[in-house]
């Protein structure tokens, strides 16, 4: 995987997940697709969106301001380190939402995910990203040091 690919992949990932998750949580509270109260949906929004928006800001500031010098170089780490955590988070969220929606449809106290559990799982996902991908972002979207010049 080249440096360019890492940046593109992470940029697209954070853009998509922020857009989809934010819209989903904001629009679908108290519907079949998100069986939690509007207040609980807003709580989830407040947990997850600041972190995601923070990453998007770093990524877009980098793309807006700098040209990479050697984007064709290969990265010196396995691909799973880049893609693993973000895909894991997507997987966890898909499973959680599916269980919550289907369990609630069948009124199954045993299977459905409660709103409280949903909040805990979303917090868990944010923690995974905080502990992993955010370091990768820091590395590949680092702003170059500008030397201070004395007047």
């Amino acid at each position: 995987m080249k440096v360019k690919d890492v940046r593109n992949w992470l940029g697209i990932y954070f853009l998509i997940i922020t857009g989809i998750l934010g819209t989903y949580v904001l629009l679908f509270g108290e519907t079949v697709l998100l069986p939690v109260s509007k207040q609980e949906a807003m709580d989830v929004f407040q947990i997850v969106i600041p972190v995601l928006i923070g990453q998007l800001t770093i990524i877009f500031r980098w793309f807006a301001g700098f040209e990479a010098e050697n984007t064709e170089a290969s990265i010196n780490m396995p691909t799973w380190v880049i893609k693993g955590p973000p895909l894991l988070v997507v997987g966890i969220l898909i499973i959680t939402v599916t269980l919550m929606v289907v369990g609630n449809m069948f009124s199954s106290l045993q299977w459905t995910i409660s709103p409280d559990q949903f909040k805990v799982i979303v917090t868990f996902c944010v923690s995974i990203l905080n502990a992993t991908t955010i370091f990768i972002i820091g590395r590949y979207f680092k702003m170059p040091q500008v030397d201070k010049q004395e007047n």
Partner: protein
Amino acid sequence: MGIKDIINTIAIVFFTLSVFGQSESNVDTSKLPSIQTEQQKSELLIRFSLHEDWDINIGYEIAKEYLQRYPTDDNAKYLKLWVKAFEEGSSKFPNNLYKKAEYMSRWKNDNWEARSNFGRRKMTGIILTTNVLDDVENRLNRRQSIDTPKDIIPNPPKPAYLAPVDCLDTENCYNANAYSLALKLVENDRLKEIEKRLNNLRENPYLFGCYDIQDIGDKNIELRCRYVREIDINESKTIDETLKLPKAWKEQLKDQQIQKVWLENGIRIDLTGTPLEKPLLTSRPIALQTNTGTYVVLEIFNSDIQSHAGHVTSFKNKIFDISQCSNKEACVNQVMSKFLEKIEAYFTKTPLSVRVLNNQEFPAGEYWLGKERVRSDVLGLPWHEISRYTVKWYGRDADVTLFDSGTGKGSKSRPYIYLMVDQTYWVAPNVSSRTYKDATSEQESRYVTSVNTAVRQALAEACRDLNGNMVNEVVDNQARNVCVIPRR
């Protein structure tokens, strides 16, 4: 007697006590203990008589205290009988407060002669002052007689009329204003302690302190629970849409802006602790916070004020006319059995999809249906509900009757049958939500429409099966369907 007069009375009592305190060394005090004893006796007797038909568990505690202090007193004879009956009731129905209260009510009717001599001449001239915050905490900390569901969080009534919680079922409260509510400013050195206690109450949003009460109208035993809510007035558009304050408070508070109020509310429950009806209209204020200070509320009961007033009860929803039946009781039995059979059929169908609560015993004239934590077919997914429908029927002579003849609930000797369906629903968007909350007004109107449709269909079908005639009557410009049962 207004609040001002009562405050004056308290002031006089305090003044008198302080005079006694100061002059203790100069005057002969040998007569004081007997005065105090008489006062305490009277207070205990009044407290007992207030709780004889209302929260008998507290009545028992008061009776025991009286017997411990004055075991040979005239009144001890009746109290001993009462305590014995209570203990018998408790051993017969150890986990059923409703049955125990019913047992005590029957016992009291059978022992009216012993009761008639109880407490004579001792219950006048007494003013009982209760600090509401202390009283609520005591109720909260007592052993709970019913384990209430922890996911039902009802709102207070809106607007809440500030009065004792069961005022509308207490003759001397509703009719005679024997109870008053006074505000007492909290001094700065006690402010933190009071705020901490109020915060503790807020931490417990659940139903607590369940008790029995005899319904003033139909004399049935009902079970009720209390719950505390902190109301932030700043969040309301106007204070009047949230609270109906006593007039004296407005005079006392003048230009102060009320910011928060802590209310103790009541709600009728079934034997499982699930609310059956909407919250009681009256809420007992516990404390009040304004922009200049915090007040605690004192509830004052004046034993001299007795109700001699009568009032009328008014019903509009007549459903059966059985005036042509020669044997009213047989006719009512037949008509109501058919009607309730149809009610069950239509209420168990979608969208209401509830079941008859056969595991519980209903009072006369009532029929309970409901469901718990299952999908709401009225609202559709994702909504789940806990609901209760209390179908009440009344045998009456007319739309409006004197209260003295009772509401006629379950009466089988009157020419007309009236219907009332109390409905409560708590909804949550997820079956395993931690709390089920009051339905919004839009959601509620959908339930009401479904219930009205089910009742109309049940009445039409029952009338057809009974060979009755469905006629339209117009009352107050509103049409109602009445099934006239032919001579039989």
